[in-house]
């Protein structure tokens, strides 16, 4: 190699770090451009309402079972844990409060986000990636239909609409899961439990949950579409795109969740 001076390895280390950093920044830039491009084109006609409804059904309706399942079990487990920990401090009465706050503020949005990311980001990346490698995206453009308007914009909008609705459902089911354990296993009084739940249920918390859900929905669709759109290299390329979509959607959901929480409560 050309670097034979003693500083060589150190420079090489910095160079490696620099390459990774530049690579990351380039990826962020490409993603941002992709998002801007989608917004710019998606906001101008032609619109495809039929595609939007199709996606809403795909993303929202068909994800409900898995979301409900996650919520009911998480709510129940949270109630049980809070109760177990609470017995040590003689504070078992906090169970309904902690369940409602925990579910509405954090667990509901984040778990729905992650579940839907696993289900939807991957499916979008695989579908669009396959369309890329089989030249269907080129065919679409050649047939004078803009893939951003026809494929990407409906997916983004559908996710931004569907996620908050799903979080509403998940929050209700999650609270109900906690209620089930508390009342039927831990011996809470049903009326009392619900009264405390209602007391700690803040509309502002719901508002924040919905904002989070909208942001997560945007990232889920953006990552699925971006990685699918850029897929290349046959089946292996589609596989990579799918994996990258899910991983990056997870990271963005977790990071943005923290940022929103810190901004709201910090």
């Amino acid at each position, binding site marked *: 190699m050309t670097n034979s001076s003693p500083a060589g390895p150190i420079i090489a280390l910095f160079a490696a770090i620099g390459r990774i950093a530049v690579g990351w920044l380039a990826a962020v830039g490409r993603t941002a451009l992709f998002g801007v491009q989608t917004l710019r084109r998606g906001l101008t006609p*032609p619109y*495809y309402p*039929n*595609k939007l409804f199709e996606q809403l059904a795909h993303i929202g309706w068909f994800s409900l079972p898995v979301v409900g399942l996650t919520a009911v079990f998480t709510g129940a487990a949270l109630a049980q844990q809070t109760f177990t920990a609470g017995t040590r401090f003689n504070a078992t009465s906090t169970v309904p409060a902690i369940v409602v706050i925990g579910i509405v503020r954090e667990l509901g949005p984040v778990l729905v986000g992650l579940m839907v990311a696993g289900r939807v980001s991957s499916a979008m990346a695989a579908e669009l990636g396959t*369309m890329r490698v*089989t*030249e*269907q995206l*080129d*065919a*679409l*453009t*050649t*047939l*004078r*239909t*803009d893939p951003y308007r*026809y494929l990407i914009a409906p997916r983004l909008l559908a996710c931004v609409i569907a996620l908050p609705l799903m979080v509403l459902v998940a929050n209700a089911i999650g609270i109900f899961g906690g209620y089930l354990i508390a009342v039927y296993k831990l011996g809470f009084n049903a009326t009392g439990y619900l009264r405390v739940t209602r007391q700690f249920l803040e509309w502002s918390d719901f508002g924040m949950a919905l904002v989070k859900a909208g942001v997560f929905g945007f990232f889920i669709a953006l990552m699925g579409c971006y990685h699918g759109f850029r897929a290349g290299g046959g089946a292996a390329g589609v596989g990579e795109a799918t994996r990258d979509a899910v991983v990056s959607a997870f990271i963005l959901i977790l990071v943005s969740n923290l940022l929103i929480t810190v901004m709201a409560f910090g």
Partner: protein
Amino acid sequence: MSAVPKIELDGLSKAFGANRVLDGVSLAIAPGESLTVIGQSGSGKSVMLKCILGLIRPDAGSIRIDGEDITRLSERDMARVRAKFGMLFQGGALFDSLPVWRNVTFALTRGRNRSAARMKAIAEENLEKVGLGRQVLNLRPSELSGGMQKRVALARAIAPRPEIIFFDEPTTGLDPIRADVINDLITSLVEDLGATAVTITHDMASARKIAHRVAMLYQGEIIWCGPRDQLYESGNPYVDQFVQGRADGPIR
């Protein structure tokens, strides 16, 4: 060629990283002409077509369609120019989420769900041209054989009656009889519709049948272009080796 060429390429170049795929391709295609482009796999034939369609932006050179330079057009103007084109992709590139009849009429509906009855009639009419019956109308592309997919894709390409049609390996993967049906179809499209056709192929029988002229692309350049009758007497060692399919020769 006294008239303005339908398609005119001048010094078209495109590189992917260090790989120079097109290196100064110049070519003029007259209206109503059928040109066949031959060349090895990976010699840039598909890239050339995709540059003309505006799917890939060339690094240098110009592309003129009916005398209009399209290399620097906005997305909206490019969409207008694309109305002149029909393209048969190598693998068909049918939309697998849509039934056959929606695929065939996609250039007309452009993704909207409108006038189903009329579109089905149009689809049927175009499918008939490629030798497919109405029983495939409601099938999904994945339910068709490879050859049928290719014919549906062909029906989709010709449905809007384009002025220019590109065929990317139209006979690859078809049995010799089906391949000849496609050859006849391409010939009749050029003759009946007066369309200008550019066909990429490795199939010499097909090239001889459908082409008025043949161009050979080698290492990013057009190394030979001439009437199809001279294809076997080109005197060009590269062309000779390619058309005779010999492993030894200047191309390796």
